[in-house]
């Protein structure tokens, strides 16, 4: 793509590095910003810079946070006896949006994957045991993706925590709500049949 201005070209190149944005969309964003008042571009760049400088990771659960301790860990209304283990803070957003969980989280920061060079010691695993004792956790929910690496990680954590005699659960797998039965993949449907539930 040819640009009449070097300044626009630079800006487009930077914006098009963002995920899901190509050159054309980047140009659209840049031209839009140019049309707005100068103040709005300033606000945007300030917001981004502050975000970058001020963002922290919660010292307890490794969630993304404004302070040393994240709002979930700091909250007094959360149930500290249920600890939900997730791969990344993105999963926290997903679970929080369901509004079905009132416990606390622990972010692993990855999954065990020897092929990608990720070993258990590269994850935030050591602090789990301490947290369990500190919060007197009664139940662990393993909310990791149902992939090979997810299974390995879940298995590893279960074995590690075995002697603590906790209730360890994992997310149910089944037919998506609003989905058509005939289009559900065989493995999911098979599991759903095996772990069917009572119809009340």
């Amino acid at each position, binding site marked *: 793509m040819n640009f009449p201005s070097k300044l626009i070209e630079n800006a487009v190149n930077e914006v098009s590095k963002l995920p899901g944005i190509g050159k054309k969309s980047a140009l659209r964003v840049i031209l839009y910003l140019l049309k707005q008042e100068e103040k709005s571009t300033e606000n945007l760049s300030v917001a981004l810079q502050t975000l970058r400088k001020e963002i922290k990771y919660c010292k307890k659960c490794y969630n993304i946070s404004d302070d040393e301790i994240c709002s979930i860990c700091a909250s007094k209304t959360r149930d500290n006896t249920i600890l939900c283990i997730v791969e990344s803070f993105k999963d926290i957003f997903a679970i929080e949006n369901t509004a079905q969980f009132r416990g606390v989280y622990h972010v692993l920061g990855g999954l065990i*994957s*020897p*092929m990608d060079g990720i070993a258990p010691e590269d994850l935030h695993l050591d602090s789990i045991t301490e947290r369990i004792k500190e919060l007197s956790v009664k139940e662990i929910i393993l909310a990791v993706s149902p992939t*090979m690496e997810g299974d*390995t*990680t879940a*298995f*590893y954590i279960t074995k590690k925590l075995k002697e603590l005699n906790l209730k360890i659960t994992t997310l149910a797998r089944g037919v998506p709500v609003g989905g058509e039965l005939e289009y559900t993949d065989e493995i999911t449907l098979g599991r759903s049949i095996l772990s069917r539930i009572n119809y009340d």
Partner: protein
Amino acid sequence: MLLEKIHLINFKNYELLEMTFGNGLNCILGNNGSGKTNLLDAIYCLAFTKSYFGLTDTQNIRHSESFLVVNGSFKKEYHLDNDDLDTNLVEFQTDFQTENIAFGVREGKKTIKSSVNNYQKPSQHIGLYPVVMLTPYDTDLVREGSEERRKFLDGIISQISNEYLQNLLKYNHLLKERNITLKRFAEKNTFDAILLESFDERLLEKGKLIFEERKRFLSIFLPIFQEFYQILSENNEIVSLDYQTQYIQNNQEDFTVFFKKNLQKDRLLMRTSTGIHKDDLEFLLEKRSLRKFGSQGQQKTYVIALKLAAFATIKQEKNICPLLLLDDIFDKLDAKRMQKLLQIVSCAPFGQVFLTDANPERTKALLKEIKQETKQENEISTFILEKII
């Protein structure tokens, strides 16, 4: 199942090729280097999304080009159960459907697309368009290590059962992860039993499923194979296959104990020393090792019988007639066996067969004899490939 048309762009030595095939025996004749084997390999790619000869995806691209495309137009039969229709009219009805498959490689990435299925992974395609290929290199099955024989076995069973293939892929993935972990332990001088156990349990579970499926397959395959060997060799030599495994008498408990016992050994070797990835299939002729005691001719006949039996087993289990690709098979066979083989593959249960020969006169003469002597069932088409390099 029939392959009606193939269209190649930049595949190996082909710049552009379009061919329409006959329904029965297709004889592809031409000099050395005219691209006979490459044409068969292109058909193989449509079924397996990879070359038969172990080339990487990009090595299949024509020299100094950046991409390749193989397009195949298949005609598939669907037998309709007439429960829904008026059963008094017809017993059953056969429906034909044209299905297009496109295999492509571009920028080091391969794609497989189908006009009727939406694949999430290329491995889901395997087995839908079954193919059995026979080449002069296949005597490696007898002479080389156990890996070749496991590949042979896995290649057939994967075409019969996609579930088997998925289990095998998962097994290999876990095995690789376990081996990398063992290596890392040795390098860093650490050990974490729980981490290894995280792989072991699933490795054993998948391994057991694979073992049982191989056993089940062999019980069906062996009698079919013995029959083909008998027909081809025209004598009463008894052949059999011995599946050699560390699994003891189907007893999984024992195997788990055995597997765990080898942990120290595994740590030293830095790889997993027990499991179905070590199993072997021994080829026996009159209860003796074919590799050690079989003549070259016997080995060749043995391999041909194995492949024909693979064809028949897939056909029986899947109810789809696989394509049979025969590359330069007359090599090392005497005139009588050549004729015999051609006779077998030119009528039922064989359907569409692709055969190459660098000696057109030989094939033409053989075909003439067959036409005169036997009641020829399948249509015969011949193609002469010009030297295109």
